[in-house]
Structure formats: C-alpha cells, structure tokens
C-alpha cells in the first residue's frame, strides 16, 4: 500500500524548512501545537514560538501585532475556530490592516471524522475567500502542503492555508512545481472531455474515478485548483471553453467554496454554452463517523464522481 500522510504534517515540515531560511518566520498556536504540526518548531525555535492558550481571537490579533514589526507569523488552530471564531478580527486587523499573517486552519472538512460536526470546518473557504487582500490555498496532499507553506512564507500577503487531519494519499511529486495562483493539471484527458476541478485530498477520489472511467472509454481532465484565490482564470477558462462540461468537487459547503468561485467566473466570462455540477456538502452539517462513511453518505467519493461525469455527458 502507498504511504498515507496528512497535509498538516506537510505543513509542519514545510514550516521548519522555511524557518531555517528566514528568521522572521514565527509560529503561534492556541493550545493545538501538536495537532497542527508545530511540535518540532516549538522545540527548534522556542524564541519564535508563541502559545496563547485556548484563545483564537487573541491568536490572530497578536499575530497581526507581530506582523506590524516585520515578523511573518503563522497562526495555527482548527479551522472551525480559526478562521471560524475570529473572523472579524482577521477581517479588520489582518486583511483591512493588510498584515502578512498566515492563518493555518487544520482539521477542515468531513475528513475529520469521529470528532463530529463541531470540529468539521465546512465553511472556512467561504469565510476567507470573501475577504479582500486574502489569498486562499488548499493543498491536496502532504507534498503540496509542504510546498505551499514555503511559498506562502515568501509573500507579503495575508493568507489562509486549509489543512486536514486525516492521513491521505500522496498524489503529487516532489518535482512538481507549486506556484500560488497557478492551477495544476493532474491528468489530461482527450479533447471534449469532462473537466473535473477540485482541491484537497478528495482529488485522489477524482483520480480513481477517472481511471475507472477510462476503461469505459470516457476521458476526464483533472485540475488541482490548490489556489482558490487568486483564481487561475486563464487555465480554467481555456479548458472550460473547449468542453463546456465542468464538475467541481470539494470537502466544503457548496455555497461559497471552490465550485462557487468557479461558477462566479464562468457565469461572467465564459462565452460558450456550458454545463456545470458543483459537488460538495449540500447545506448540511457533518457528523461523527469514519471519513469513508461520511464521504459515502455525503456523496463525495469516486463512485459519485463517476455518476456525475456520466450525467453531465448525457
């Protein structure tokens, strides 16, 4: 079996690499150092590490202050609490104030599993995407999370990085390039294919679906849209124009997420007739269960992706 690793682990490793290069990088947490991959950092760089206790509003506002003196703070917690609980503080003191704070929200999505709905952030991308100045990044695997962490440490912008608890498949390579705002084509189909655009570990399910559909002579292009903001309009429009059949998938509410962002773009700028299906959580909260049970119930696995591909081809 292939090795499974969580994106939060990739963040932890990436942060160590970035911190070695740049002494301005600090890390803060709200009583979740080990859960968010900061244990090593806190030991290696105690003088650049800050523990605020269970206080997410303080977490991001202190980070804003640190950024005001030239530090590049990475503030970690679970996504439901940060950016969930402290949204207005992020809006004013980080985005409007335009400070280079990196909001790291772990345990996003149904993939959290057994902890249940209170801990499964399904709204965080929407919350962050709506804020001016904020970049929004959702890495799909361990390797990409590591690269994204290094990349965001080099920008001056407020950034939201969405991470996951569960160990998941590694679908990118160390040699793959990661560029903020540049979509990655994970799989290229033949022309007139269905375009599947997704983010996060669920892309592994899209790859499985595409492989199985190939046996039925249906070809799909898969785009890893790791940057939801700023949106790679050109890549999306160019591909969408060719086929006019677009399916999006994400472990997030349908309202306000990746699918929503793409649909805003297409409805305004795509000048051909097109069909689109947004796969995500339909106006519901999550619940306890294994990630597999939940993805089945909420219709977010390869089986349902295949169904949607066939539907859109009809």
């Amino acid at each position, binding site marked *: 079996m292939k090795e499974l690793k969580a994106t939060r682990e990739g963040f932890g490793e990436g942060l160590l690499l970035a911190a070695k290069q740049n002494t301005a990088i600090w890390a803060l947490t709200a009583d979740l150092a080990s859960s968010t991959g900061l244990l090593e950092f806190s030991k290696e760089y105690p003088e650049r590490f800050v523990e605020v206790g*269970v206080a997410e509003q303080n977490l991001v506002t202190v980070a804003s202050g640190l950024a005001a003196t030239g530090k590049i703070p990475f503030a970690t917690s679970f996504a439901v609490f940060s950016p969930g609980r402290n949204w207005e503080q992020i809006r004013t003191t980080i985005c409007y104030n335009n400070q280079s704070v990196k909001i790291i929200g772990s345990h996003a999505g149904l993939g959290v599993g057994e902890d249940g709905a209170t*801990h499964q952030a399904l709204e965080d991308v929407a919350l962050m995407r709506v804020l001016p100045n904020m970049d929004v990044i959702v890495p799909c695997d361990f390797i990409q999370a590591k690269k994204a962490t290094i990349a965001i440490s080099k920008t001056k912008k407020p950034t939201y990085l969405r991470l996951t608890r569960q160990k998941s498949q590694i679908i990118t390579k160390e040699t793959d390039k990661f560029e903020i705002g540049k979509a990655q084509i994970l799989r290229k189909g033949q022309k007139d294919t269905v375009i599947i655009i997704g983010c996060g570990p669920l892309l592994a399910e899209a790859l499985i679906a595409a492989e199985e559909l190939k046996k039925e002579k249906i070809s799909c292009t898969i785009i890893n849209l790791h940057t939801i903001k700023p949106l790679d309009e050109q890549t999306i429009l160019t591909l969408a124009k060719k086929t006019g059949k677009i399916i999006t998938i994400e472990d997030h509410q349908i309202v306000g997420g990746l699918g929503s962002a793409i649909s805003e773009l297409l409805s305004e700028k795509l000048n051909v007739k097109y069909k689109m299906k947004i796969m995500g959580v339909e106006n519901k909260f999550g619940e*306890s269960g294994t990630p597999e049970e939940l993805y089945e119930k909420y219709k977010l696995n390869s089986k349902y992706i295949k169904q949607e591909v066939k539907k859109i081809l009809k």
Partner: protein
Amino acid sequence: MDKKEVVNLLNLQAKKIRQNIIKMIHEAKSGHTAGSLGMTDVFTALYFSFLNVNPKKPKDPDRDYLILSNGHICPGLYATLAARGFFKEQELFTLRKFESGLQGHPHRESLPELETTSGPLGSGLSQACGIALSLKRDKKNNKVVCLMSDGEHDEGNTWEAIMFAHKYHLDNLLVIVDRNRIQIDGNTEQIMPLGSLREKYLSFGWGVIDINGNDMQEIVNALQRATIEREKPLAIIAHTTPGKGVKFMEHDYNWHGRAPNEEETKRALELLK
C-alpha cells in the same frame, strides 16, 4: 438514609460510570479520557443527588438545566445519563460511531436529552446565562448548572459571560469548574497561567467554593450550600485529578484526548474494580 450511606452509594455509582467511560472510549478508539474520569464524581453527584431531572420526561418545563460547556468530556456525561436511565447502557458503545446519538461532541438534535450543543470551548457559560436570565424573568425556580473546564478560561467569551452573570444577579446559576490543571499542550500554568480562579471569580462579583472534586462528601456539601438563598452567581471550583482512578493516566495531559488501547483498557478496568 444518613449522609454517609448516600456518599457510599454515590461512590459505587461513580465507579460503574468510570468503568463504562473506559470501555466506551476504548470501543470508539478515540475520545477524551482524562477529563471524563476526573469529573465523574461531580457528574454522579449532580445526576443522583442534586438535579431535578426525570428520564421519562427529559423536556419537563420544571427541570433543572445542565449545560456541559467543555463538550469534549461528553463520555462522562453520556455514561452518567445512561446510569440515570435516560437511555440504554448498550448505546454507550456507539460513541463516535456513524449515525449514533452519541456524537463525538454533544449535539442536541442527535440526543434530545441535551440542553445544548458543545465542543467549541468558551461558549457554554453565555448560553447558561441566557437560560438563567430567561427563567429568572419568568419567575421560575429551575436551577441552571454549567460545567466548564479550566482550559476554557483562556477564552475571552468566558469572561464576558462571567461579568454578565454578575450584572444580572443570576442567583439561579451555578458553575462548576473542572480545575484539573491540564489542557491539550500541557499544564495550564505553563500554557496560559490561570492562577487563582477563586480570586478571579470573587473579584468579578461571584460567590466561590473551592472543593476537592473527587471527594464525594465535599461535592455533596458544596451542592447543598449552592441551594441556600443567595444573591450572586456561584462558582464551585472543583480541584480534580485528571484521569482519576487510573493511576497511569492521572495528572498526565497526554491523556487529555487519548483512547486506551486493548492492554491499557484491561489495566484500567483492573484499577477501577
């Protein structure tokens, strides 16, 4: 029954509840062991000698309200509710499983016996304040009890509620704080020093009773004092031992959110005999 007999019976009950907590968290393979075991004596005293609740009529308008603000210790609450007859003991072993009423963190719509949904820390006391204020203005006599952890005193929302309760003279409100001195990343005084919660609550205008939260007699006495006519909200600071009863878990923050494996479960149950 004299006081001593009552305390003995409560201790027996608490022991059974602790055994179930270990078994159910082991079965679930995840969950919060230390806090659940530490607060078992308080849960037991509340449900078997203090709260006016009726398992046959959980939504009785005259019932007392129990709000679990630190929702992660719900295994302790669930096991106590089962022991008190709110649902079958067998259900405990569906904890954290797919489509169970016993969600990983308490969800009111999955388990209607609950008054609130919780897990995210620091928002229970405000809800308890809302309930207490509403009952008070309706001239009703229901008691409102809010259980909180020490860790959630890091949250600003907690202190907003503490001031609120004082302003509105919520004399029908009782807080019990699990002062176990641990949180996730370590000991509370290292992660975010809380110092004396007694001094803090007193200076915010509350009444305060400090007790050993694992001494049934002290718990029962403190609860009795809580029912005496008062003009203020009252906080019982329950100094507890996290992981109480299972020596190798006691006072170790690593057991905050860890489930015992097969071998640890055996040893724990042996210690809880």
